[in-house]
């Protein structure tokens, strides 16, 4: 396995990009701004007492959007770009299997995204702990770990999409299309599914499986997973996943963890299957 060399190369390449530093600065400003806003303005904490837990869920609600957009920007060219430009010929002249290339890319780009993200959030939470002074540090640590995992999942999705095509134009279209359909317009998609599955009419009550459909977007699954990992904090700050209205055994926040794990594995596996058979 030589993916370590690929990941190292990919990370050192990205570290020398100005946009990474701009991104880091942006993350830090965003995190500090959100922390400040949460601790200063009561309406942002939704009437509950300001706590670290409250700050965690407040940040978590926004991180989902930013991770999805930035991972598309950072990763859509990961494989397609190297193929289009011809650096893939240098990469694959060396003894890397195509699996090594994909794994190395996912690890390298996760480092590119997650390092500034975790630093920024960690900074915001540290200041939050000093200013607010209430709540457990453990919830902050769990939040950072889960957010790191979410970044890894999103990078894996976009690298998987990038591995499907040999031009950056197509890769960008896939990434943007994915964001629009699976994140931005998903409520509509879920609604259409419900409408069609019910014989082209609206049911009086949504069936149990509908909850799972609403959890398909990775950022929804991330939020539900956070609720599942920090149930007491979630209850205290009124963070809910909408699972309450359903009574199937799978209509629980934990489904978010399962769905995110599937997002980690499935797109990259499809990407690998296509890429491993492709002519460069």
């Amino acid at each position, binding site marked *: 396995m030589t993916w370590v060399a690929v990941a190292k*190369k990919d990370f050192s390449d990205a570290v*020398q990009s100005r946009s990474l530093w701009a991104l880091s600065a942006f993350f830090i400003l965003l995190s500090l701004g959100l922390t400040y806003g949460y601790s200063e303005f009561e309406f942002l904490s939704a009437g509950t007492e300001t706590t670290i837990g409250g700050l965690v869920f407040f940040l978590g609600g926004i991180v989902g959007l930013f991770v999805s957009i930035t991972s598309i920007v950072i990763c859509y060219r990961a494989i397609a770009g190297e193929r289009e430009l011809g650096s893939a*010929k*240098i990469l694959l002249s060396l*003894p890397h299997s195509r699996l090594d290339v994909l794994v190395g890319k996912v690890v390298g780009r996760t480092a590119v995204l997650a390092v500034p993200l975790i630093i920024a959030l960690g900074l915001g939470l540290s200041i939050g702990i000093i200013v607010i002074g209430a709540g457990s540090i453990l919830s902050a640590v769990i939040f950072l770990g889960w957010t790191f995992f979410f970044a890894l999942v999103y990078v894996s999705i976009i690298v998987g999409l990038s591995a499907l095509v040999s031009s950056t134009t197509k890769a960008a279209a896939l990434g943007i299309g994915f964001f629009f359909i699976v994140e931005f317009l998903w409520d509509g998609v879920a609604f259409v599914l419900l409408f069609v599955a019910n014989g082209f009419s609206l049911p009086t009550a949504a069936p149990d499986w509908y909850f799972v459909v609403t959890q398909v977007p990775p950022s929804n699954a991330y939020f539900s997973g956070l609720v599942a990992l920090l149930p007491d904090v979630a209850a205290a700050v009124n963070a809910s996943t909408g699972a309450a209205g359903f009574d199937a055994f799978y209509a629980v926040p934990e489904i978010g963890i399962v769905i995110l794990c599937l997002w980690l594995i499935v797109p990259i596996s499809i990407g690998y299957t296509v890429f491993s*058979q492709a*002519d460069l």
Partner: protein
Amino acid sequence: MVAIQLDGVSKQYGSITALRNVDLTVESGEIFGFLGPNGAGKSTTIDILLDFVRPTNGSATVLGHDAQTESVAVRSKTGVLPDGYHVYDRLSGREHVQFAIDSKESTEDPLDLLDRVGIADAADRNAGGYSKGMTQRLVLAMALAGEPELLILDEPSTGLDPNGAREMRKIIREEADRGATVFFSSHILEQVEAICDRVGILNNGELVAEDTISGLRASLETDSRLDVTLENADNGAVSAAEDVAGVTSAIQDGSMLSIALTRESKYEVLAALDREGYSIVDFTTDESSLDDLFAAVTREPRSAEGHTEEDAAAAPTEVEQ
């Protein structure tokens, strides 16, 4: 020991045939020149050896490993200078070579390799700012990492000035002396003639010759050319020349007859033309160069209209890579 073995390899891109039933053997330790006009299928062949593309038919074995199923093993023992590559603009020369060393799980100092190819002074500059020649040297340095058993070099002198091309040949010789097999493609004949033990000539996706250069010369009947300028050249003069034993072809171009023939039949041709009433204004003769050999094997059989060498280079199906 066999370093490279191709058995009946074909590659089809849609309706375009890039390679047609190619059999090729490169022995371990030799310097093998892979010749052919642009678009002949040289890069496709190399792409198959490295598993960049998969053959439609046939199999390729490199250093005893199947090129498709055991590609990582192949590439761990092979240094490659590919064609149509692009370097990582933001990484320095040193970082590129270090990446190759890490990937090969080797331990050399990247600076030694950069020094060998003559760009040690640019080691810490970003490769995006390198000239074409420096980039070519950089990727050669990457290919040399880990003392590979086999070097595959696709058009290695691309972008190099004559001095750079000579240094490239020196490195190729040094690598061969170390015991490495060198397989390189080129459409420039002088380089091949200067250092190759054997050559293979590819044309239109088919291997049309595989031999030593002297063997190639001997195998072709035409090892000489005679150009005769006549006062009254016509088709009759062409026929008269072609009737002489030892003449393979005669082409009329204005007042000049260009005749491919064996060395021994030159005098007889001149005598025959004189006998038929053609008055000889001038004639020149020369040993056929590798260029002529190349042209002879890659060209369609000569017709009376005659092909120019440019035609021969442009005619084969260009395969978009």
